[in-house]
């Protein structure tokens, strides 16, 4: 019983953590390349979720089968959010790329508020229900009382597939190689003939698309979306990215899963009001002993 309970909570934790991980990837990629903490990222997640909601509503009313509704709204939401990410970068961040780090940070906070309250203005502050795209099914594992629902399985599978695609892009494609080069040394990359602007845009596009995917999955799992929904998950994902080592892609994955499971296990032991406190204490402890995060490299600042 005790073991089954523990495993059940572990599964709950992994599904929470997967969503953190997907959002954390966007933070980490952008930080890795232009050393900017993109606080508007959590709100791109929100926009992605709403686009998923509207397209799912439209497609479902058009009578498409559920699997097709899911795939099309996922891809549509990811595409629109990628474009949004590029637009934000071009309009807000590019003009101040040469100014101080703090100016960029403040701009990011500004963009975040802009997205949140445009959402409140256009969509209203009330939460909206997300349509049930796929009917959830419960599965019992190996004849025990451990339950896994189809959504949790889907979250994990989607996260893993997106992660593999991402690793492939970063490791083996031209864009990915350019991203790594720009991340290593922007000036040298430019001298080698790499189009730095286009590479940065590509990074924002990929990061935003992943956030949108997380947004659609989030909506499907929790059935409620509102314009300020990105604030808490955005913050938690940022913590996950720092925990794993900001700038490191595997770090974002591990950080997200770790944060999700720690939170869940704390709640499962009956200390639900301590949940956030303990999760952040874990962060502080890890940063005391390993300031660059679990997978972070110790890079000396260039002077």
């Amino acid at each position, binding site marked *: 019983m005790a073991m089954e309970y523990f495993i059940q909570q572990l599964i709950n934790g992994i599904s929470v953590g997967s969503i953190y991980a997907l959002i954390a990837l966007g933070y980490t990629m952008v930080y890795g390349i232009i050393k900017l903490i993109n606080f508007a990222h959590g709100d791109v997640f929100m926009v992605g979720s709403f686009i998923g909601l509207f397209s799912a509503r439209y497609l479902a009313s058009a009578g498409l089968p559920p699997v097709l509704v899911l795939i099309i709204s996922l891809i549509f939401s990811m595409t629109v959010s990628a474009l949004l990410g590029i637009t934000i970068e071009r309009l807000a961040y590019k003009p101040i790329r040469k100014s101080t780090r703090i100016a960029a940070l403040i701009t990011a906070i500004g963009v975040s508020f802009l997205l949140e309250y445009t959402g409140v203005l256009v969509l209203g502050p009330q939460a909206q229900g997300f349509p049930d795209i796929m009917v959830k099914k419960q599965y019992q594992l190996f004849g025990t009382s451990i339950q896994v629902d189809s959504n949790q399985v889907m979250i994990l599978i989607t996260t893993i597939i997106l992660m593999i695609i991402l690793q492939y892009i970063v490791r083996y494609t031209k864009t990915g190689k350019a991203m790594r080069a720009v991340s290593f040394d922007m000036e040298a990359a430019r001298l080698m003939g790499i189009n730095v602007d286009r590479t940065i845009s590509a990074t924002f596009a990929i990061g935003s698309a992943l956030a949108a995917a997380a947004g659609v999955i989030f909506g499907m799992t929790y059935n409620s979306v509102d314009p300020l929904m990105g604030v808490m998950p955005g913050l938690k994902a940022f913590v996950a990215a720092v925990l794993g080592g900001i700038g490191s892609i595997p770090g974002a994955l591990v950080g997200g899963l770790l944060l999700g499971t720690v*939170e869940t296990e704390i709640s499962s032991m009956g200390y639900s009001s301590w949940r956030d406190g303990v999760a952040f204490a874990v962060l502080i402890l890890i940063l005391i002993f390993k300031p660059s995060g679990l997978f972070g490299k110790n890079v000396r600042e260039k002077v």
Partner: protein
Amino acid sequence: MKKIGAIILSTVLTAVLAAGCGSNNTESSGNSANGGNSAGDTIKIGADLELTGGQASFGDSASKGAKLAVQQINDAGGVLGKKLELVVADNASKSEEATQAAQKLITDDKVVTIIGASTSTNTLGIVPVVTEKQIPLVAVGATNPKVTVDERTSKVNEWVFRAAFIDPFQGQVMANFATNSLKAKTAVIYTDTSSDYSKGLQKFFEETFKKNGGQILSQESYQQKDSDFKAVLTRIKASNPDVIYLPGYYEEVGKILKQAREMGITVPFLGGDGWDSPQLAEIAGAAALDNTFMSNHYSPEDTAPEVTSFVDAYKAANGGAVPDGMAALGYDAVKLVADAISRAGAADAAKIKDALAATKDLQLATGKITLNETHDPVKAAVVLKFVGGKQTFETKVNP
């Protein structure tokens, strides 16, 4: 086309505004012309309500309810042989404007009593004015305990009364409902720790449920804007309680119910008036709401004669609209005042205050009211059951 629409809309709005101002002016000018009208052939009652702004729907319902009560009383011959006159002032859903409206009602309109406002925050803007000017106030929809009892001194506000029951009372009602109607022996309480409302309900549910011989298996908590509740729900499922008390607001409650039912938790969930929103069914889905119950001030489906006669009269006066809780409370507030004036024997503020404090077993639309020593009503609450995602009247629970 859009432009023409906008022009028409703005013209209509201006006309409405002008009409509003006009009627206000006539009311106050009529008063100054007659001079000291309260001593004449009418008794003036002020209503400080949210006619515009964010909570305009509350104020609108409350004023309709109040007007109906005044009309009924006048048709039956008035109070002490005099007609009642309701002077309505708009507080624009703002606490500071509620203060100004109350000052206007007392100084310019010379009302003997004020009813309103429909929220705790706006009512708290009126409390200092009526205390200073020594005019009784009957709050319509204020449910926060600190409206009638000063938070710092723990003293009862001498001039302040209310028609709605206070937040903690709902906790008590649901605990009795769980024990008596659902025969529950064990319960888990799942509280929103970021809300005073939720914590108030939780405290009183716990006290009463324990007093009834029940056992609280565990206390769990969440915060507003949380979205994943599976960890705690898995824990609750393992402890297998008879009922789960969930005194939160509809948004998180909707998500919790949905996730709980998906995980196979089938026991009843109980909650308070924070559940009262059409969005609850949208977020949770109608199926997840089966076997859930909430407490509220009143239900239009209640078959008690005082409720049906109120609902019928309200419908007749307002083009068939079904009165909501706030309309019933506005109606009751006026009836409370009228009863106090007739028992006081004179339209005198101090005497009305003493008579209000002595209100006992007065039959009103939201139940039989007795005001207790803190000026809060002791009255029945209704328990609503969700059937197919809709609220239906289940039972009435007496305190």
